[in-house]
């Protein structure tokens, strides 16, 4: 009897695994990692990015110039300036921590910087270097999905098979998206605009990549 229950359980698990994973209404079928070429939003060749930024945070509105520089120790030096040149904050964002080099008194809150550090990592981390990744394909379109187990949080990177540039990233916990990042590209496939929205917090970021032209 015991062996019958165990066998049934194993069969059930097998059948469930064959049906593929489900996320956000999509059915995904596992495919090989080699079958997809994929590029991070800002590859290693780009060291410093300047954004025109708009931040809506708990009914407050901040605009300014966001500068992110990849440092040699792989930290992300992140500075927000007002258009008039006043520095609002200066952070060094690392994989699992961050250092506040400077913040004006009005915004010097740890919970706020926890979220900002999380957002900067989401945009700039090359998760392909993470080994705990899985690739899936939508069975109705050429939409591809990269699922990453990032220290207990699931990250979903959306892109199309013929365009290996990230279209959207979702950070989810218990199957519910918490952060949604969408990316718009220029004709030359250079990231132009990024929109980031926190579902559980009243925070939205609009970032426009500035070029030196």
């Amino acid at each position: 009897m015991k062996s019958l229950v165990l066998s049934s359980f194993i069969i059930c698990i097998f059948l469930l695994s064959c049906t593929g994973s489900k996320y956000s209404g999509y059915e995904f079928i596992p495919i090989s990692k080699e079958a997809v070429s994929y590029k991070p939003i800002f590859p290693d060749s780009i060291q410093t990015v300047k954004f025109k930024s708009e931040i809506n945070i708990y009914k407050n509105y901040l605009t300014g110039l966001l500068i992110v520089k990849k440092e040699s120790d792989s930290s992300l030096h992140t500075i927000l300036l007002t258009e008039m040149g006043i520095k609002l904050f200066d952070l060094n964002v690392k994989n699992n921590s961050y250092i506040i080099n400077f913040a004006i008194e009005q915004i010097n809150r740890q919970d706020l910087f926890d979220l900002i550090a999380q957002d900067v990592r989401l945009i700039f981390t090359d998760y392909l270097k993470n080994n705990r990744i899985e690739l899936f394909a939508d069975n109705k379109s050429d939409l591809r999905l990269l699922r990453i187990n990032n220290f207990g949080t699931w990250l979903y990177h959306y892109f199309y098979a013929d365009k290996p540039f990230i279209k959207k990233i979702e950070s989810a916990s218990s199957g519910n998206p918490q952060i949604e990042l969408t990316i718009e590209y220029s004709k030359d496939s250079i990231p132009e605009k990024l929109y980031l929205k926190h579902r559980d917090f009243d925070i939205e970021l609009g970032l426009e990549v500035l070029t030196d032209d």
Partner: protein
Amino acid sequence: MIIRKALISILFLMFLTLGLSAQTNQFKDMKDIEGFKKKFEAISKTIVTIQSSFSQEKNLSVISEVVKSKGKFYFKKENLLRWQYDKPYSYVIVFNGDNILIKDSKKSKVLNTQSNDMFRKIAEIMSMSLQGNVLNSKEFKIAFFENESQFLLKLFPQNKNMASFLKTINMHISKKDYSVVKLELAEPSGDYTKIEFIDRKVNETISDEKFSIK
């Protein structure tokens, strides 16, 4: 090895001293501070409007390049101020009494200066700088210098909050017409912003629409 280190230290100190003396040669203590104050205030009282182009450079130690922007500013007595950035992107900030309008190419937003301390301080600094009221302000301790063509006012914020993001403001004033030609805003970190004013026009009519917050 010790001698070599000592020699390097002495050479470094010599260069440092040369640099410092070059700086002090450029600007010396102002001889007639009271005379300057009287004239600066008298000229400022005659100013009703100012419009000018400006170029702004932000020097950040973290990135090797300088962040540059350009635009125009408009000022109308008593407290109407419009900063208009044209490059690298369109951005307008209008200070009108207790209200601030922030406008970019897509949308605009009205804020209240009373609820935004930093914006209020920026508006006050700019208005005071342009009207000459800065000389009477208790917000700053001022040191006075001059060279052949300019006066230099070094403003040291006395307010703890302001001092946390601004170490000094260097205000360069032309000896020719007592106009502010350059502002340098230095941060405690050593990063600084330089704003140079060009093509300045005084007391020419500026439409009130420029300062509208609607």
